[in-house]
């Protein structure tokens, strides 16, 4: 079954801005799906339409076969959403933020209390339950929104930048938590600016740019297809300029380091051989950035416009 099915989705705002230009997207039940794109690409508009905070201009949206035009409440009952911006009542106690949300979803009070305790404990917020939510730190506020989104145990959890502004330790514990939720059967759609997050968590990915999907495929296939990594090599020798290495794009970073791009048909051994042949010794090396980030930047820069069939968009080095 499709957790989310979108076809021909368009949105033109009152100021004339066309945010979505015909989006087709399907997310399978149980999937961990990344929806990526630069700021203003249309990710949050899609989420807004799915969660009924934004009215669509055209197109069809179904959540677990509930068409939002025919049974919006049925669709809403399946969704839990963690928005980009903090949107709980900052004057409410932490526990009440979760309990009220459970109430809006029709969860009886006793069950709501049980679940609130379960999720607040799992997200390390139980000790803060009696405090006003505005007194929480940024990371705690994000975790509170996750607890709130889970209290009605949705079949589809939409996370819009859930770890924005959160330190790396908490971010990683949130990843573990979200991964466990997905393993228990909840479909997850994640938008994030931390591409390593998407690469590490998600099985499928769609990249959206200027209101259109430019890539839509399995994460592994996307990474393999567009594999092009940039490595920084630290050299023992001092260099004045970047050496010419046949078949590779080489840039000088400073007098002791080089930046070398390695494409899908190339490998590191070839680089080491060529460096040795030039009398250069690689003392150490590291990735300049993660693979998805590199791919993402290239796609966005190339302004690919092919519809996402997994073959259309091609990153041009």
């Amino acid at each position, binding site marked *: 079954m499709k957790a989310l099915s979108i076809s021909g989705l368009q949105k033109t705002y009152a100021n004339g801005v066309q945010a979505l230009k015909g989006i087709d997207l399907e997310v399978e039940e149980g999937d961990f799906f990344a929806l990526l794109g630069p700021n203003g690409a249309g990710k949050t508009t899609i989420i807004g339409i799915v969660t009924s905070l934004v009215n669509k201009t055209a197109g069809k949206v179904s959540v677990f076969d509930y068409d939002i035009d025919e049974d*919006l409440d049925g669709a809403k009952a399946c969704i839990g959403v963690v928005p980009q911006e903090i949107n*709980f009542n900052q004057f409410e106690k932490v526990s009440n933020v979760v309990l009220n*949300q459970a109430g809006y*979803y029709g969860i009886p009070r006793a069950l709501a209390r049980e679940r609130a305790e379960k999720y607040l404990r799992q997200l390390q917020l139980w000790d803060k339950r009696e405090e006003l939510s505005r007194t929480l730190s940024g990371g705690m506020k994000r975790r509170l929104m996750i607890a709130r989104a889970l209290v009605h145990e949705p079949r589809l959890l939409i996370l819009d930048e859930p770890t924005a502004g959160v330190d790396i330790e908490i971010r990683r514990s949130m990843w573990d938590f979200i991964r466990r939720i997905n393993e228990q059967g909840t479909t997850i759609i994640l938008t994030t600016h931390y591409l390593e997050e998407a690469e590490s968590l998600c099985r499928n990915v769609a990249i959206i740019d200027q209101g259109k999907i430019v890539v839509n495929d399995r994460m592994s296939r996307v990474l393999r297809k567009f594999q092009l990594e940039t490595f920084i090599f630290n050299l023992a020798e001092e260099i004045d300029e970047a050496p010419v290495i046949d078949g590779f794009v080489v840039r000088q970073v400073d007098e002791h380091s080089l930046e070398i791009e390695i494409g899908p048909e190339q490998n590191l051994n070839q680089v080491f051989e060529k460096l040795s042949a030039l009398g250069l010794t690689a003392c150490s090396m590291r990735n300049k950035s993660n693979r998805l980030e590199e791919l993402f930047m290239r796609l966005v820069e190339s302004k690919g416009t092919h519809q996402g069939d997994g073959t259309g968009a091609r990153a041009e080095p």
Partner: protein
Amino acid sequence: MRLKAELIGLQTIIYREYKRIIRIWMQTLLPPSITMSLYFIIFGNLIGKRIGQMDGFDYMQFIAPGLIMMSVITNSYGNVVSSFFGAKFGKHIEEMLVSPLPNSFIIIGHVAGGLMRGLLVGIAVTIIALFFTRLDVQHVWVTVSVVFLTSIVFSLAGFINAVFARDFDDIAIIPTFVLTPLTYLGGVFYSISLLPEFWQQVSKANPILYMVNAFRYGILGVSDIPIAWAYLIISGFIVLLFSVSLYLMKTGRGIRE
């Protein structure tokens, strides 16, 4: 099954509104009580003694129903407009909008909040009034039903104001420039029989006149207008304002993009 879940949602909004009113009682319950005490002391006691009788009652007795009604109107309106606009401003309205709670229940829940505050303030002002004058309720059911229905009317009006409001100025404009003048000119402090014929007819275009007089009829047994008209107008406003609120929620005006 779905209705049962929706009723839990409605109950949640009502309970949340109740807790809000009680939590900020210094803003919701205390100020109207102090203001009305001053009205009773200045207009009722000090000036009222020189005015003498109106419609056969001491001036203090005459204005007491009007002052109770005035506080019910302003507080019902104020509660919904501030609560709903506050939710819009703080974006936590989205908690309700993404949930499967029907629009009608979101409206009814907030109206219930307005009703609660209106009635609580109404009771407080009535108790204060009893320190200054005697009120022998003549028609209990008229008194209770009129105050109840009027509170609903102004809670709905406050809801619509909050939907349209874009900033805090927008939630102050209607109470300052529409609600207060209409209330003051709605027979709270005088009987319209004191006015020249032309102004009597003009006053009859003011819906608050009917609400204040119907309530006064319930307590004192006198009114400037037929009570049936008051019920008709109040009911008409409830149907109209509820329909408008529902339409606004459905189209998402001022709430959804």
